[in-house]
């Protein structure tokens, strides 16, 4: 408490005012005096006291009502309120407590008891003031942190690719479960023929996961890497595995699927580091949904991990879908985890029915599994190849 202790005495007995003033000044307090409730409230509004000693039975507004009005005023309710009672009123303490009184003192007053009660009241008042300060500080910190996270999430979103039109159409959906997630992806033309696409999912959530995914993203976009490395998915994953070993990356590892598509030869070369397979949809009477699997461990777990690339020539009007596990690792209404095969069948039915856009696919998944939202980050990329 920075300012001097202020105590307001509300009592119509002027002898008691003299006596109380003396006792309270001994405690180092500034004493404000009022002879009735109305003028007491007036004094308090002018200069809010830390502690109030108020008589119960007074002409006009009684002590209970004064107490109620103090406790109803946001600027005054912090004051520690002591009601003075006489013996006959002891039974009415319940009413005093209901009015918000913090303590009671019996008349005639015993000076040493009075001082002890005031000291204890001030301890409580100070502890409450500290708690209020702490809670205000915390609220401010939380606000700052949320604003920072929102800015960071805005930054992550700004890094993600816009939709792609032309020889290859590309659309994506990014739904971080918190303000910041560890999922990241990109697709862009390496040159006039080859399109690079990748998706990655860093273990964990929040700022540390986002930092790792951003640094991978920036590295791959920086053009610091030779084009022939970017154009070779197996070598690229091997290279990343050498750069991002877990002991150097806040104990984080990530799964990744990356592919290179040549629009002239329609060749897709891809490799995976423990990521769920990309899905290739071939429309037609005998439509197919293929899982594009390639062996490889998540990046960051083992120095010597090997990534074997796969190659595929795509039929005309194939569609490639890349996702993170957040979209299918979800619980059904009966509590059971959705089987991956069920997910595949569900997606294929949707695609056969002409649903293509990531937003619609995701909305259908939520509706089908009766979930209001996803628990994990969800990324879905759809490419028309």
């Amino acid at each position, binding site marked *: 408490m920075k300012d001097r202790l202020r105590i307001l005495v509300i*009592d*119509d*007995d*002027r*002898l*008691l005012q*003299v*006596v109380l003033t*003396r*006792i309270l000044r001994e405690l180092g307090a500034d004493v404000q005096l009022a002879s009735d409730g109305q003028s007491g409230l007036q004094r308090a509004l002018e200069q809010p006291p830390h502690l109030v000693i108020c*008589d119960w*039975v007074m*002409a006009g507004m009684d002590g209970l009502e004064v107490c109620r009005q103090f406790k109803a005023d946001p600027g005054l309710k912090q004051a520690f309120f002591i009601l003075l009672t*006489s*013996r*006959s009123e002891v039974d009415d303490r319940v009413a005093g407590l209901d009015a918000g009184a913090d303590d009671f003192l019996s*008349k*005639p*007053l*015993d*000076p040493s008891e009075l001082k002890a009660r005031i000291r204890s009241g001030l301890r409580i008042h100070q502890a409450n003031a500290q708690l209020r300060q702490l809670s205000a500080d915390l609220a401010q910190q939380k606000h700052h942190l949320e604003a920072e996270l929102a800015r960071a999430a805005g930054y992550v979103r700004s890094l993600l690719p816009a939709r792609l039109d032309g020889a290859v159409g590309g659309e994506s959906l990014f739904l971080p479960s918190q303000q910041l997630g560890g999922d990241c992806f990109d697709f862009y033309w390496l040159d006039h023929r080859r399109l690079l696409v990748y998706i990655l999912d860093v273990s964990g959530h929040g700022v540390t996961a986002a930092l790792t995914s951003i640094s991978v993203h920036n590295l791959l976009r920086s053009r610091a890497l030779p084009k022939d490395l970017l154009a070779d998915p197996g070598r690229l994953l091997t290279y990343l595995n050498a750069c991002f070993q877990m002991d150097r990356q806040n104990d984080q590892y990530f799964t990744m699927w990356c592919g290179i598509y040549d629009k002239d030869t329609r060749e897709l070369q891809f490799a995976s580091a423990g990521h769920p397979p990309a899905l290739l949809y071939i429309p037609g009477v005998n439509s197919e949904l293929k899982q594009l699997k390639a062996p490889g461990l998540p990046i960051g777990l083992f120095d010597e991990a090997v990534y074997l690339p796969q190659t595929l020539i795509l039929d005309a009007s194939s569609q490639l879908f890349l996702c993170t596990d957040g979209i299918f690792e979800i619980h059904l209404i009966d509590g059971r985890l959705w089987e991956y095969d069920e997910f595949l069948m569900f997606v294929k039915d949707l695609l056969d029915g002409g649903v293509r856009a990531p937003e619609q696919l995701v909305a259908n998944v939520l509706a089908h599994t009766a979930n209001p939202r996803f628990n994990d980050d969800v990324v879905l990329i759809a490419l028309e190849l």
Partner: protein
Amino acid sequence: MRHTPEPAINPTAWAELRALGGDEADAMVAELIGMYQEDAAGLVATIRAAAAAGDAPGLADATHALRSPSATLGALPLAECCRLVELAARSEGLASAERIEPLLTEFERVRAALAQLALAP
């Protein structure tokens, strides 16, 4: 068994009050006695009038007003008389000259005792 009347001013309460004054105990006690004499005379007049008129609410208010300063000065038996009259007036509507007899007797004892204390504290 011989009955010793309770002192009009409780010695312990009086000693505590003086202790509160410290070096200025004489001046403070004189100020308090002066205030009390000033206020109490008027309140007792009001009590007499209210009792004579059978005005129970008026009697309750005036006895309540006399009770607190009496207790502050250590006049505990008088404060108790005030409480009993106030209680009867407020809860049962009792107000008569007869009911305030003990209070008036006790008030005279307090006045005499305070005069003594004011002269030789």
